[in-house]
């Protein structure tokens, strides 16, 4: 088990190193950030000064060296636009995003898995067909359009839910949270639902496919032959058998939900990291873009690492080092 953790940890570090190079080269090597930082009427001398201050006169590998060294010390640079440390900027926006993402994905998983199992157990029932129709719809409808429709329906036409913002927040441990107040909760419903829809569709499919396969497996037949009730079979055998793909996808989707939060936050003016990155992209605020990408990559690596560990906890075959076919 320890060897497994060490091996995965080393892999994670390697991936992070590679990602930082790609992100750095990708973002810094393209275009010229100087033009954004200094006013167009600046003198040549001022220009030279800025270039030197930002270290842009150094060879690329040296720039990366400084960048990586600073990263390791938790220094992600200063935002060109906000003129404050990027880490502080992102840190301040992170709770809003995390709150939104976690609520969405938990909702999608709980509801999606339940519906998916039902559709897998009774593939021919009318309700199952309805569920599957919904899942195709959820897959096909672009997330941003659903957001618009949600606003149109609940905020504009019915006027029962707010169209944007975070609403009232409660500060716990110095961090503001929306879901703790009724007003905040009413603000989070629409964006969370919007963000959850695609994941919901995916969870439904995954759970349905896994359940169908499990229900036809010899394990389930043998359990039936031993007289186990269908409820017990579902709870103890099927749920366990489908848990591995669901946890994988849960982990992977946690990351992609973060990415999709960019769209949802833009539509609902949710003051999270996604909104920040879109604003930064439109004005080419490079330090913010780089920091966001590096942090997202880091988050991804951590999620994958955790998923691997959870696997090992669930699947005894991995724990004992024998990969099953």
């Amino acid at each position: 088990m320890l060897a497994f953790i060490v091996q995965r940890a080393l892999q994670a570090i390697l991936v992070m190193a590679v990602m930082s190079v790609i992100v750095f080269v990708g973002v810094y090597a393209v275009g010229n950030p100087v033009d954004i930082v200094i006013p167009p009427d600046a003198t040549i001398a001022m220009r030279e000064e800025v270039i030197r201050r930002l270290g842009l006169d150094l060879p690329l590998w040296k720039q990366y060296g400084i960048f990586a060294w600073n990263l390791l010390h938790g220094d992600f640079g200063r935002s060109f636009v906000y003129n404050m440390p990027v880490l502080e900027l992102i840190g301040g926006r992170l709770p809003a995003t995390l709150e939104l993402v976690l609520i969405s994905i938990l909702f999608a998983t709980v509801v999606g898995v339940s519906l998916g199992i039902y559709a897998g157990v009774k593939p021919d029932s009318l309700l199952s067909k309805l569920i599957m129709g919904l899942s195709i719809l959820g897959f096909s409808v672009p997330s941003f359009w659903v957001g618009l429709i949600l606003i149109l329906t609940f905020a504009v036409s019915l006027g029962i839910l707010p169209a944007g913002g975070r609403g009232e927040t409660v500060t716990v441990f110095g961090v503001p949270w929306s879901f703790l107040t009724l007003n905040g909760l009413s603000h989070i419903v629409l964006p969370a639902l919007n963000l959850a829809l695609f994941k919901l569709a995916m969870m439904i499919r995954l759970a349905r496919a896994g359940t169908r396969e499990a229900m036809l497996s010899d394990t389930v037949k043998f359990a039936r032959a031993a007289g186990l009730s269908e409820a017990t079979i579902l709870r103890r055998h099927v749920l366990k058998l489908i848990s591995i793909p669901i946890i994988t996808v849960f982990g992977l989707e946690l990351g992609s939900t973060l990415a999709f939060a960019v769209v949802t936050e833009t539509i609902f003016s949710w003051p999270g990291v996604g909104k920040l990155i879109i604003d930064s992209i439109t004005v080419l605020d490079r330090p913010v873009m780089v920091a966001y990408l590096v942090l997202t990559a880091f988050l991804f690596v951590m999620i994958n690492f955790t998923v691997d560990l959870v696997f090992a906890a669930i699947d005894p075959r991995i724990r004992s080092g024998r990969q099953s076919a």
Partner: protein
Amino acid sequence: MTGPAPTTPAPGKATPPIVLFWREFRRNRFATVALAVTLLLAFVALFAPFIAPQDPYNLQTLSLMDARRPPGHVGSGGYVHILGTDAQGRDLLSAILYGLRISIQISLAAGFIALTIGATVGVLAAYVGGWIESVIMRIVDLQLSFPAILLALVLSALLGQGKAQLVTALVAAQYAYFARTAYGAATAERRKDYVEAALATPLSARRVIFRHLLPNCAPPLIVVATVQIASSISLEATLSFLGLGLPVTEPSLGMLISNGFAYMMSGRYWISVYPGLMLILLIMAINIVGDQIRDQLNPRLRR
């Protein structure tokens, strides 16, 4: 458990597999309708200039008098704006047809380029093996663990607006799916004894790749292609919605929706809603067709 043996068609003339495939496809009425819708939309997009009541980009035909009129309004052009008009006084139906054209163009281009690059990379990795294989596939896997939308977002931000830039961003975001799929199918085939044997003989590499590896990759690649084309339509619309995709002069469906967003709060829903419905119809039809193809190509689901 031993089930009944599958039916074998009556002996006689051998039916080509594509005909058999179509016969099975046709049995799913839902998918057949979806295929018809897909083809119809493709046709309408192709011939948009001949079908649309108005050329939405010819500024001379536009009049601000006609701006933001609801569906059914008879404009200064003397014809009914069935779906209303947008903020510039464009006939929305015409704008949608042209937008559809652009959306399909971009996603098809991106899909084919991503397919070509992905299949090449994947099959190459499977064929060459060794450290090249592990390096290529590590990169592909790394990229797959990263959400495509983020990659496309950053790339299109860096590359700027424009069709070519957008296609590049979409290809970069999507080729990895094709590469993974082609690699999977090709390695499965490569491990088979007869390919190993073929590799040991002085047969040309081309023969092994084109006769054995590529044909085996085709079915899963077709499935991935339908999924990816649908998703790149959605991705393109999303980017355009965020103002990152195409320039204002070439509005795709996503941009039409984005343009209408501002007017939605005041109840002028049609500017956003109708392009959105068209977008959904297109994506859904492609997805349903793709689903059916996947089910038909997947032997495990057959009973």
